[in-house]
């Protein structure tokens, strides 16, 4: 039944430690020259992606950090946007980060040729604002919650994420459905298999237990997601609610800046295209008696929906970065599900799936046409 090849890896010293050891080995064996992986910053109050060359740094690396301060896809793209270079790199990320990376590859922001992508089953991440309140405590909390698959303390979008085990990279670490002190090493590409046999891993084991578990969880989450979106729609749906929701926006554009798939160097909504003479604004004001100035915050958000919702991976980075606690990520995840469903497209699912807006089918979407035509 499986399209993946996999192997069971025993991890007496714990999953994370075992993976780190594997990574060290890949460097020793020259499989990779460098590894992109989260590390705790010196102050201890954050985790940042680091391009590691010296394997001794791996000891401080963290395969599954409790938070996502910078979306991994941004890290990968910053390293390869201008070209793949000679360095062979492995990037360790969460599934939604991998999916964003795939989208960026389609958009020419990432070069995957010398890049091997490793993902793992993701229990979600803590909102960074929560984490910052007490890093030490929250690391513990996260680890316990992760073990128990309890997502209540995670980002809202993590709680309704049905793709937390989606494999679109080269290698995936499956912890779901695994026996104690073991995990699944799952290969999704030739690159993955190469790494496996360099490490002497035999991809012949049965991984059904992982797949069954993944299936049930993503189905549960899918239901939960639909329900949440339904509720959200009643809250923010309709022009009044929408405007009300975004009326707190202070135009800092943090959401756009941290969004892995917002790639424009200069956002359309920061350009002079949205700046007008005073009297234009006054004219608009007069029609209603008074107008909020900052203008166009809703325009900005809806514009973004048009620009990136087709590639949105619902990672939640935007919501974390929002200084006004607007549920941006939840709203965008809702919109994204709809727009992507239109083309039955799943952002970052597969590299060979082209982004719908750069492709078309002759026979499609007649429902949006005027019936009389």
């Amino acid at each position, binding site marked *: 039944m499986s399209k993946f090849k996999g192997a069971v890896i025993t991890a007496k010293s714990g999953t994370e430690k075992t993976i780190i050891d594997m990574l060290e080995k890949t460097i020793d064996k020259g499989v990779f020259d460098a590894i992109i992986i989260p590390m705790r*910053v010196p102050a201890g109050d954050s985790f940042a992606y*680091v391009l590691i060359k010296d394997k001794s740094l791996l000891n401080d690396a963290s395969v599954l950090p409790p938070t996502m301060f910078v979306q991994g896809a941004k890290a990968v793209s910053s390293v390869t946007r201008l070209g793949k270079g000679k360095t062979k790199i492995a990037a360790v990320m969460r599934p939604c980060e991998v999916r964003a990376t795939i989208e960026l590859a389609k958009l020419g922001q990432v070069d995957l040729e010398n890049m091997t992508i490793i993902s793992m089953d993701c229990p979600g991440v803590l909102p960074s604002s929560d984490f910052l309140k007490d890093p030490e405590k929250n690391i513990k909390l996260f680890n316990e919650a992760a073990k128990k698959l309890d997502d209540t303390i995670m980002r809202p979008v993590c709680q309704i994420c049905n793709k937390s085990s989606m494999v679109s990279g080269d290698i995936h670490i499956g912890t779901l459905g695994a026996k104690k002190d073991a995990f699944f090493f799952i290969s999704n590409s030739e690159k993955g298999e190469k790494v496996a046999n360099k490490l002497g891993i035999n991809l012949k084991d049965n991984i059904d237990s992982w797949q069954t578990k993944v299936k049930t969880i993503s189905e549960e989450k899918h239901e939960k997601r639909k329900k949440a979106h339904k509720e959200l729609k009643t809250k923010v749906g309709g022009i009044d609610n929408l405007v009300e929701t975004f009326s707190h926006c202070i135009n800092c554009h943090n959401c756009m800046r941290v969004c892995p798939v917002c790639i424009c160097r200069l956002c359309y909504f920061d350009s002079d295209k949205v700046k007008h003479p005073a009297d234009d604004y006054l004219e608009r004001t007069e029609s209603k008696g008074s107008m909020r100035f900052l203008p166009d915050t809703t325009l900005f958000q809806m514009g973004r929906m048009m620009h990136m919702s087709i590639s949105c991976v619902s990672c939640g980075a935007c919501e974390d970065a929002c200084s006004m606690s607007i549920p941006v990520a939840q709203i965008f995840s809702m919109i994204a599900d709809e727009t992507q469903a239109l083309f039955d497209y799943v952002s970052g699912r597969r590299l060979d799936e082209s982004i719908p807006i750069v492709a078309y089918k002759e026979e499609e979407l007649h429902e949006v046409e005027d019936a009389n035509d």
Partner: protein
Amino acid sequence: MKKDEEFMPKILAFLCNWCSYAGADLAGTSRLKYPPSILPIRVMCSSRVDPIFVIRAYLSGIDGVIVAGCHPGDCHYQEGNYYTRRRFAMLKKVFEETGLEKDRLLLSWVSASEGQKYAKVATEFTGKIKGLGENSTKNKVFL
């Protein structure tokens, strides 16, 4: 860097084409000697030196930066070096306030006839940097 060999700093020297670069050349034609630490970068005017360059070089681990231009009043472009001086003053202040080693930065006026002075500046500044030791930003990870 091996222990046994003495620390030879890397020092960037931005030299304006008309005065300081010519001064540096003169030091050479006069066969004066100064340490090989100095790595000249020729710009047409010291006012081309964007403070951002210096910050970037510093963070990338350069041990010292010299910005050299014509003496005030002698700028080939009339007044460029006055602006250079203001920007440099600001940059140094920013370094000072953020607790970075502002002593790794040097502004110096060297005319085309001051080969002697250039060699002196190069030697003394190199000595000073040796005293400060390697720039620790070299091996920082979280920049």
